[in-house]
């Protein structure tokens, strides 16, 4: 079943001349884990906002084409209808904390209060969301006393508690240290394995290569290439445009020049793939 169906999406921010998205068409299946890569200004965040309805409801601007999420046309339904179906989380953990709540538990309740979930149901749902994100032991702490990785997991729990159909994450680990990133990635992987549709914008290509089902590369508002992670992330199309390749890909590419990489084998993205390739060549 297709959960997200974007066709010929063109979008220009108010007061901008060039479109941020220019003829993007994309389908995402129920339960799929889709990663989006691209340079700054490629339109990654705009695409996230379009999926969650913030484009055009919040940002205004000019939109052509269609975005269907769980069968709803995002231009026709209100933002309030959309946010309970599409959970959106982004970079800065601090800015996602409401600042109006005293404990982590209450922070997570914020969304449920807004959509009028009865109090008896809230407890169960909040506890489940805290377990999923591994923050149960933080529930009485102030959200402001937490580390970046913990705050980001609180932000994820606050979104997950609303039981969205699609999870849209815009570089959720870019402001975190390695430990924090690992904690957040763990939660994303877990959610994907549980069957939630995940759309993730991320620069850490090694991680994407391991867990994403499909990768879309955006460039100047258009889809440059899409397909299996390893095919997309090692594509010359990407390196020509200055995308960040993983260090394993770069090492293997150099090795290929000196005939040290198995002929005909696709370049690696992750450490494991590199080890496999090099040991095959050794034999």
């Amino acid at each position, binding site marked *: 079943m297709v959960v997200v169906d974007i066709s010929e999406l063109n979008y220009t921010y108010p007061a901008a001349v060039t479109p941020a998205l220019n003829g993007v068409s994309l389908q995402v299946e129920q339960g799929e884990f889709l990663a989006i890569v691209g340079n700054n200004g490629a339109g990654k965040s705009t695409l996230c*906002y379009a999926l*969650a309805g*913030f484009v055009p409801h*919040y940002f205004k601007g000019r939109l052509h084409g269609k975005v269907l999420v769980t069968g709803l046309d995002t231009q026709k339904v*209100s*933002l*309030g209808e959309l*946010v*309970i179906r599409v*959970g*959106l*989380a*982004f970079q*800065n953990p*601090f*800015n*996602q904390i*409401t*600042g*109006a*709540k*005293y*404990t982590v538990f*209450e922070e997570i*309740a*914020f*969304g*449920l*209060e*807004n*959509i*009028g*979930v*009865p*109090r008896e149901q*809230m407890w169960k749902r909040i506890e489940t969301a805290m377990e999923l994100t591994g923050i149960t032991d933080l529930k*009485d*702490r*102030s959200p*402001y*006393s937490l580390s970046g990785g913990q705050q980001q997991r609180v*932000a994820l729990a*606050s*979104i997950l508690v*609303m039981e969205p159909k699609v999870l849209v994450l815009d570089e959720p680990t870019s402001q975190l240290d390695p430990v924090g990133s690992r904690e957040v990635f763990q939660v994303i992987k877990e959610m994907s394995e549980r069957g939630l549709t995940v759309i993730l914008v991320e620069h850490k290509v090694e991680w994407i290569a391991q867990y994403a089902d499909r990768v879309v590369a955006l460039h100047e508002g258009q889809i440059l290439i899409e397909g299996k992670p390893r095919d997309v992330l090692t594509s010359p199309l990407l390196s020509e445009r200055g995308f960040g390749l993983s260090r394993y890909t770069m090492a293997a590419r150099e090795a290929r020049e000196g005939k040290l990489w198995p002929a005909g084998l696709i370049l690696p993205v992750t450490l494991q793939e590199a080890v496999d390739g090099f040991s095959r060549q050794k034999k």
Partner: protein
Amino acid sequence: MTTSISLYIPGDSGLHRLYPITKLLLALALTLGGFIFPVTWASYVIFLGIILPISIWGGIWKQMVWAVWKIVLPFAISIFLIQGLFWGSGTVLFYIGPLSVEKDGIAFAFASVGRILLVIGSFLMLAMTTRPDLLMNALAKLGIPGAITYIVVTTIQIIPRFQAKAATIIDAQRSRGLKTEGNFLQRARSLTPLVLPLVLSSLVDVEERAIAIEARAFNAPGPKTILIDSVDTQNQRIARYIMVIIIILMIGLRLWWLLTSAN
């Protein structure tokens, strides 16, 4: 462990347990009292006679008095200097060089400082014993729009973050050679490269935060629920009605005085 980011001082006193709106009305009534009664010492009587005992009951009087002292003292000094030296006519108390200090100038300064004392004191009495989120919930129940209560509650919480951000910007600009010390002119010149990044980055933060709370259905139509509600009692409800009547009476009295004195 909870880092305190608001003025709230955790506690379990009777004052802490009062329904937030009861405290809000009390603070409002006490403040108005100082502005209405036409004697210069009214504010001092209310502060010492009512706010201080209540704060002792709430176990926060030390922090309250300390904060009041820090906030009011600079105001008091400048008000006494300016009103005392440059304002007033009539009975001259004494001279400082060519400047005369008049009796009504000092009286005016005395009353003004009293009012500042009262406003700060009653606000702190409320803020130090009331969890901001519970105040927000209580206001929302009265039908005040969520956007307004959200702004009021979060503004106080954002201040420490704002300070931290300002410190980062000062460090960053200093490391690039900006002189933030020296005479008045040098300091004034260094203001733009400090204030501009602070304002711009704060605006970006505000936008992100707006999207984040929107993503959590802040503006969703339909009824909302409240997870944690404060305990209200029949006695407090009666007390609130009485305070509302007193507030209205005080405003009425003031208007009546104004009208009669105009004739």
